[in-house]
């Protein structure tokens, strides 16, 4: 593997250098942009849009574009495309789609940027840091006994406090994550985590929190809080976790 990387890295660098050098050469013979094409040949125009422009990883984005007076149209990373079209893409990282339309009358370009949020997780935006800190200090996770979604008596008080905090902060939407310990099987634990999160949501709704403010995700044993194989750690992982939505 290392040996392969040692070969791969120089090769990749070399390809990169060649690509850069190649671009320069190509640019040179192009007519300067200010040179007006003959009056009979209109310059191409291009428009590119992405919907939506902000997604979570794995979601789809629809690119749509329109060009006029172009003979060839290409989008970086996609290749040649029709002069007018729609395409669904699934970027996993923030991507700027760059369209170039070439015609006899010149070249036109258009770009559209898609921002990709990391997969659903506990995301704390920096501009609400203090609200997030307050949330963390006021809203506490609850814990479960093994292989059950029953709300324990000791969790009831926590849930009541969480519900009253949410009642006094009606703008906050929350995500409840359902978590399980490492024992047992992935698929079953996801179903169990869903039931833990749903049971927790139901308890909040019963306490007066609007159901529309609560999003529920089961993480099963996919995102453990600790990874030791003992009861203390397993208890940490059998929980419903609260976080601010978005």
């Amino acid at each position: 593997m290392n040996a392969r990387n040692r070969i791969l890295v120089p090769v990749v660098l070399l390809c990169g250098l060649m690509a850069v050098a190649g671009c320069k050469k190509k640019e040179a013979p192009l007519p300067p942009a200010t040179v007006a094409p003959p009056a009979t040949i209109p310059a191409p125009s291009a428009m590119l849009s992405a919907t939506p422009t902000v997604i979570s990883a794995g979601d789809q984005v629809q690119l749509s574009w329109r060009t006029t007076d172009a003979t060839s149209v290409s989008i970086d990373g996609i290749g040649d495309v029709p002069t007018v079209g729609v395409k669904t893409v699934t970027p996993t990282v923030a991507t700027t789609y760059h369209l170039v339309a070439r015609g006899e009358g010149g070249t036109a370009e258009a770009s559209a940027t898609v921002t990709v949020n990391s997969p659903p997780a506990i995301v704390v935006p920096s501009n609400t840091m203090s609200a997030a800190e307050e949330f963390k200090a006021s809203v506490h996770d609850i814990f479960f006994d093994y292989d059950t979604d029953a709300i324990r008596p000791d969790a009831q008080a926590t849930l009541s406090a969480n519900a009253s905090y949410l009642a006094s902060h009606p703008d906050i939407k929350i995500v409840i994550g359902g978590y399980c310990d490492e024992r047992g099987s992935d698929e079953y634990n996801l179903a169990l985590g869903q039931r833990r999160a749903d049971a927790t949501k139901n308890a909040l709704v019963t306490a007066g929190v609007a159901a529309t403010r609560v999003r529920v995700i089961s993480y099963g044993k996919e995102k453990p809080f600790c990874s030791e194989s003992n009861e203390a750690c397993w208890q940490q992982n059998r929980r419903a976790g609260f976080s601010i939505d978005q």
Partner: protein
Amino acid sequence: MKGLRPLLPLLVVSLAGFSAGPVVAQDWVHTGTNLGNQTIRIAAADFKPLGYDAQTPALKAVFDATLYNDLGNAGIFDVVSKSLAPQAMPGSPTEMVASQWSAAPSSAAMVAFGAFAVNGGRIAVSGWLFDTSNTVNPQVLGKQYNEAATDDMARTIAHRFADEIISRLGGGVNGIAETKIYFVSNRTGSKEIWAMDYDGQNQHQITHLGSISISPRISPDSSRLAFSTLGHDGWSVRMYSLELGRMVGFPGGSAGGSNLSPAWSSDGSKVAFSSSRSGDSEIWVADANGNGPHRVTSITGPNVSPVWNPRTNSQLAFVSGRTSEPQIYTMDQDGSNMQRMTDSGYAVSPSWSPSGALLAFSWNRKYGPGDPGGQDIYVFEIASMHWLQVTHESGSNDFPSWAPDTRHIVFQRSIGHRTQIWTMLADGTHQKQLTQAGDNSMPNWSWK
């Protein structure tokens, strides 16, 4: 042969590794899978190289090793180790001296042999199978192959020839050398769906979703891959077209909450899965295109991991936690006639054998707080309600999936916090580790 020898570079190890005796069922084994019956002693001669193409030696080495491996993996042969076989490389029936091979120490009842050439970027293989005891009419098989000169195609030709031999000598059950295994790997940093050949070769990534994707289930015609992915609103059952090389719609698989563990009916017309959309985790069934999802169960508690009886498509097995720890149940496809299969412990991940007679599943018979127990693969005969344990005292074993020959099972084994994919014969013998890089889990064996 019950050793846990990791499958290192397959082609090299196999030359030395298969010298052990016949695969014999042990006392505690009765699977009804025709394992442990009399095995046929077979030799695979190194093929005779023809011509002088520079690619020939390397590609022939791949071919010879793959064919030898495939026959060993089949589970129905006692393969003559290369060290006991004659040095001869007969390239045609006229060059074949059967007595050389039937004599001790090779003592082969059958011998596979032939010629291997590379011409103008193509591999040309002629392969024969001879019955050494039949002096009048020894030829059992004669096959010719012509494919592009690549490692991949050298392996593919060997797989095809092996499958011909296995089908001919294995009681009409087709070989599995051309099958694939789909699985989850985190080796790129996120859990994505991957595929590999049945012997662990040719591992390659299928999805690039950057989230967590699990539970791959290949369609019976190998055209589509159903799986479950974590998104903004929870888990969705999603569909990837291997023909188109991209995601395709599966509208019934998204409804918020947890939509998990898809399962194809063997006619490819329906997908069963688990969904929490009704407020509880239940078994649902949708058309193969994701339309018309409807609920089958109404049972409080987690209900997941459905699998169809592939023989009838009228029954499902699944996991239900209605009585606390999960147990295996069967039911008719309308949710009626529910029957509990396991009596205790923690039983999950059923896989229904292609014959319809057996369930493989993962069982921790002494699950509970303070009781580490052991999670092992069991095979359960539905008609008799008898079960047998097929993995023993080695890691935590889960997600068994039957091969189409009903002789092999692929499964995941966790040791410490590392999980890898293994195959074995359905009696637990001949265990081989197929993956090494990252963590690899939830294997699913293709239908053909």
